[in-house]
């Protein structure tokens, strides 16, 4: 017995020594990216370009691994929040910029310069990144990570389906919600079992509901989630108009696929509907073009350049949008942050800086053409991206950079779900939203416009 125990201890000791040689360092990256799955290009870039390049630069002692997280954005947020609060988690993590305020206030993120010191402040990359791009991953003037770039939201259009219904897709640009709905009705009349118009709603889609759906409609009423003093608007005509638009689309006229907004895998269903020609007009971010429908991916649309086009999201009526605009859109940005508890602070920063070096971002263009945050990286030859950003960047809006926004956004998702499922009337849903937001931010930080 005693001999056995000795053997056990010896082998355990041996195993632990070999598993962690003292002269090396391990780094881990996590992102919602899976080769052959979601954000496939990102995973491929990290695995085939970033990691080999970085280990070559640092020598054999450094080992970098990528964890390809296949769950939803919300699940990754949940994972990272719990990891960071317990001192665990990857050294470098894929992150949505809008979450930074709530994480920072919760003590779950540290500014880059506080983590890695001079190496950060002296990085030569900063001079090639605009303040706007920095702001995507900043809070109260401090950078917590580096963004991969910003995005805009448009209506993606199946030109072939519009043609079938006798509409000329090359000139189609609705100027009001009424025109948008009219087109949807025409398409529905042509194909009664199709769902021509999809505007995201509901809890399962998380922030995609708030961004692609709710904001895109709400901005068209001239309102935002907060007023210009930063107070959350809890009851207003704009909210009611937005909810009534949802009601028209999903409950009254069944112009959109209601099931896709209620089921857990709903967002993929909307992608599949668009790919299969069941949905002709889908409100999505340009990520939908860059990654979701990119050739070779699961939701790739055949002959994409001929079949898929886009239009701007109109305000409710011309000139009634935010700042008096005729058309509206909203932008966000995802990127990477450093784990505040990382054992390898300097090395983790070096990796993040390496990912955002001119060479690596230029390499990334080969996997996923996009407008990169560095001004010294050549703009890829992608007419779609050039056109959309040119047309929409001047019109765009950003979400409140506020620690409570995340929780309020969850209430927005609940409110839209209640309407889309037909459970509550827009008025009742809004009054429940009002109560919930008051509980989150306190009555003094809210305002009622009715």
């Amino acid at each position, binding site marked *: 017995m005693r001999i056995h125990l000795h053997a056990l201890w010896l082998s355990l000791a041996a195993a632990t020594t070999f598993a962690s040689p003292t002269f090396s360092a391990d780094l881990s990256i996590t992102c919602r990216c899976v080769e052959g799955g979601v954000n496939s290009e990102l995973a491929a870039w990290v695995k085939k370009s970033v990691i080999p390049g970085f280990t070559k630069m640092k020598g054999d002692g450094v080992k970098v691994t990528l964890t390809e997280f296949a769950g939803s954005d*919300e699940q990754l947020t*949940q994972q990272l*929040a*719990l990891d960071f*609060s317990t001192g665990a988690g990857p050294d470098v993590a894929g992150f949505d910029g809008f*979450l930074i305020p*709530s*994480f920072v*206030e*919760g*003590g*779950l993120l540290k500014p880059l310069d506080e983590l890695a010191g001079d190496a950060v402040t002296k990085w030569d990359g900063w001079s090639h990144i605009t303040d706007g791009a920095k702001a995507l991953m900043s809070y109260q003037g401090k950078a917590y990570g580096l963004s991969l770039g910003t995005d805009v939201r448009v209506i993606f259009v199946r030109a072939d389906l519009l043609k079938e219904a006798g509409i000329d897709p090359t000139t189609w640009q609705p100027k009001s919600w009424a025109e948008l709905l009219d087109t949807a009705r025409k398409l529905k009349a042509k194909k009664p079992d199709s769902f021509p118009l999809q505007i995201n709603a509901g*809890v*399962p889609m998380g922030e995609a509901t708030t961004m692609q759906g709710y904001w895109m409609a709400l901005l068209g009423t001239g309102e935002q989630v907060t007023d210009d003093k930063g107070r959350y608007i809890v009851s207003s005509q704009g909210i009611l108009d937005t909810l009534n638009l949802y009601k028209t689309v999903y409950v009254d006229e069944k112009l959109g696929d209601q*099931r896709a907004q*209620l*089921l*857990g895998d709903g967002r993929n269903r909307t992608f599949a509907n668009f790919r299969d020609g069941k949905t002709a007009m889908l409100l999505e971010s340009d990520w939908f073009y860059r990654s979701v429908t990119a050739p070779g991916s699961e939701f790739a649309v055949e002959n994409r350049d001929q079949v898929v086009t886009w239009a701007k999201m109109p305000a409710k009526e011309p000139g009634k949008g935010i700042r008096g605009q005729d058309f509206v859109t909203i932008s966000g940005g995802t990127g990477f942050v450093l784990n505040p508890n990382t054992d390898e602070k300097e090395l983790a920063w070096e990796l993040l800086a390496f990912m955002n070096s001119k060479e690596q971002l230029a390499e990334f263009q080969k996997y996923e053409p996009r407008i990169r945050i560095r001004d010294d990286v050549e703009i890829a030859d992608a007419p779609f991206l050039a056109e959309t950003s040119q047309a929409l960047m001047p019109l765009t809006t950003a979400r409140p950079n506020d*620690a*409570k926004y*995340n*929780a309020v956004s*969850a209430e927005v998702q*609940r409110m839209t*779900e*209640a309407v889309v*499922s037909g*459970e509550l009337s827009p008025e009742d849903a809004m009054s*429940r939203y009002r*109560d919930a937001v008051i*509980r989150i931010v306190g009555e003094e930080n809210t305002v009622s416009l009715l």
Partner: protein
Amino acid sequence: MKSFSLLSRGTGVAFLAPAGLLVGAFVIAPFFWVIFVSFTNRSLLGRTAVDPDFVGLANYFSLFDAATFFTRGEFGSSLILTIQFVLLSAVVGQAALGMLLAWMLQSVPKSLKHVTETVAIGAWILPEVVIAFAWFAFLDYENGTLNMIMEALGFPPGDWLLSFPFWAIVVFNTWRGTAFSMMLFNSAFASIPPSYFQAADVAGASSWQKFRDIGLPLIRGHVVTDLILITMWSFNVFTPFLLTSGGPSYRTEILPIYTYRIAFRDFDFGKGAAVGVVVMLINLVFALFYLWVMRRRAKGVAA
């Protein structure tokens, strides 16, 4: 009565110490920690994560706020949903169905009895995740087995998980747990001397009469034990989450799922802890009742 022991008191304490330390560290300490957190507005994100305020009973008041108590997605509605779920899936489903199966098994050939027992045990020992996934595939709208059967028989397909989510998790939990009740009742019936039934047969009693007058009265204690256990289990079961995620629109958000959402999706630890404390009190009532019944039975046997 003279007490004796194999070990000295000191040795006994030494043997108990490791277990005591573990229980203390992983059960007792978190228990008091949860109670403490339930009086704060501690969260995981935002300012109150690092600097929570003491809010007294505010979390409890918000759970029992009359204005929102019955709103779907709030504590009260979740509690009512859980009670319906337990009554239908545990009491009516598992216990009644288990009783029926166990009684029927008394009068079938041995071989058939063995096959039935094996199948039922199979349902009981499979990992919950596997079962939930199988049910998900069975109930799926587009490619589900159930809808294929419906269509083959000429019925319209149903959107089970969206249109009847509550019944889906009730059937799921019934299917999952019936085996336990069946096995328990089965062995309880086996403990009744066969001569009782033979005498009843001679007197010309029907199966129902035998069940009502001989079978049921003699296994009453087992029935109570079974009911308490499966009620507690169903009250705390989380697996329906794998089928419906508590949705759509909270229509299947039973208390364990509600607690999970508040604490680990909304990251509202304070309120989540308050829900945990209330659920624990409810469980305590079940447990005390169970102990009381057990003690009464033990006394009855002694007397």
